[in-house]
């Protein structure tokens, strides 16, 4: 399935071949990833779904050069993950907002810009633009602890967008939020994706979230962490929240659920 280019139509942003990662622990080896072959093309919205321990977060961290694979190859933007990280070619959104409490919202968004050496005027313009993109205008001078959890996570998305990386890696960004806030942020995220044309890799353990957001759903299963199914979504690009009631949507959700169940069949 690891096709690089499709007649020049789309370019691979992330390409993994036979990727494996084994953690050495005191209790012996833990196989977090085994023989993962995957291709993420430019402009795709790819969700990784699976129970905990299936290696979905680990895979995202390998792309981000936060973990080192023990076998196989992976390229990000055609280079090694380490080079991609040094080139600042991706933005990472963590499970928690991880905003610095001593910085205001605008200063938090400015953090990567300061580190990457953007000029003062450029910085201000980018802060304004990204905060507008996540609907946080007017909260520039607030501190993170003065905002709700949903607003904090939006600020952390703004921070990941501020330096215009083409690839956005999101590790269960809405996992800690309640259903209503989550629905809202999901539709916001789709709009943002349409507006910015970014490639998004999104880790989740919610089936509706994965189906609603993605153009491609990667179903994973644990022990050892591996890919069991890759589903190309036939849903249209324009997705109102009501799309979740349609038969097409439910059919994909069913297939994801079947994939997850298959991965679980040998245990419990």
């Amino acid at each position: 399935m690891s096709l690089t280019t499709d007649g020049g139509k789309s370019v691979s942003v992330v390409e993994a071949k036979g990727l494996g990662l084994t953690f050495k622990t005191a209790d012996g080896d833990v196989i977090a990833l085994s023989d993962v072959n995957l291709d993420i093309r430019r402009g795709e919205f790819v969700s990784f779904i699976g129970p905990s321990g299936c290696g979905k977060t680990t895979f995202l961290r390998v792309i981000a050069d936060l973990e080192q694979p023990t076998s196989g190859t992976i390229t990000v933007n055609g280079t090694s993950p380490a080079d991609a990280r040094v080139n600042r070619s991706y933005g990472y959104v963590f499970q928690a907002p991880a905003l610095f409490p001593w910085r205001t919202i605008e200063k938090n968004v400015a953090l990567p810009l300061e580190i990457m050496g953007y000029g003062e005027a450029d910085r201000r313009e980018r802060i304004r633009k990204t905060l507008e993109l996540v609907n946080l205008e007017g909260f520039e001078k607030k501190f993170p602890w003065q905002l709700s959890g949903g607003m904090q996570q939006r600020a952390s998305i703004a921070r990941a967008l501020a330096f215009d990386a083409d690839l956005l890696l999101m590790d269960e960004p809405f996992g800690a939020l309640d259903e209503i806030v989550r629905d809202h942020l999901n539709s916001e995220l789709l709009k943002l994706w349409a507006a910015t044309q970014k490639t998004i890799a999104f880790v989740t353990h919610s089936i509706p979230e994965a189906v609603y957001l993605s153009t491609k759903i990667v179903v994973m299963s644990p022990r050892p962490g591996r890919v069991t199914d890759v589903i190309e979504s036939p849903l249209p690009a324009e997705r109102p929240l009501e799309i979740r009631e349609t038969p097409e949507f439910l059919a994909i959700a069913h297939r994801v659920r079947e994939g997850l169940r298959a991965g679980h069949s040998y245990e419990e």
Partner: protein
Amino acid sequence: MSMLQRVLAAFAAGFALLALVFEFASTEGAPLPVWEFPAVGAFLVLAILSLVRFRLKLSFWGDGGLAALGAMALMLALDTIQQAEAGYWFALVSAWLFAWLFAERLSGAISKGKVGDAVGMLIPLVFGVAILVAWEAITRGGNVPKVLLPAPSGIWTMLTGNIPQIAADFQQTFMKSVLAGYVLGCGSGFLVAIAVDRSPFLKRGLLPLGNFISALPLIGIAPIMVMWFGFDWPSKAAVVVIMTFFPMLVNTVAGLNVAGHMERDLMRTYASGYWSTLFKLRLPAAAPFIFNALKINSTLALIGAIVAEFFGTPIVGMGFRISSEIGKLNVEMVWAEIAVAALAGSVFYWVVALVERAVTFWHPSVRGGRA
């Protein structure tokens, strides 16, 4: 009124009655009856009359006024009596109970929101004054030998009468030894902590050595520092450096490790270098620890400098003054220096704590929120 307040009110009036019954004081063995002191008599009579509170409403300001009147009358009486007798002590207890009752009712009124929070400043003030009044009354009324415990008024007279000398001592000990030693000790502890954090070799080599230095006894170090750096303030500053270095070192090393994994990963995704991660993430996160050390050291530094002056010093300095005046049994001067040292230490601590609040405003412990 609460149960406690009822009991306090009843006992305050009861002790006032006892004060009227018992012998008040004596001079040269001759008894001095209470009616020779109209102010005290007025206080005692009003105190007994305050029992009407069980029928009518009596403001807590009334209790405050009674406590103040009683304290003032008893202080003035000290000038004429030679030996306080049972009546005097009962009156003192009565005034003290009124002060307690006042503070009790005032804090109750504040928590119910009946009076402003600013009035709450009165409570520690009442507490402090009550201690001073009791101290003055016991030392002078009970004729406690000065060598054991001088009266606050005597200490105050000594303090105000020797301002130039005490100011010179303060200048020598605090402005020179303490501040120089504090800045050098905290500064070097901080820098070494960053080096230790950077290098595993130093972590193994220097951290145990820092521990070793902190375990050295002050009394052994001080004379050696005098040998090395001379009699003047630099040797005292050196002792302060040794005392303040280690708390700063361990606190900063601990603080540099509190930044979370997620925040570190975040900096890594930005390909942030060592120094930019240090200044933008790890040091701000370590600030509460660093200020902890600064606060501990603010009082340690003063103790170190004063004790160090016991081991060779020019004829100026708070520690020198204490050691030489105690030799002359001029205990009031010793207490005056102690008072100045305590005040200076408190103000120093308070200033550091104030800066801490401004810098670590974001920390849950300061803003009173959740993490």
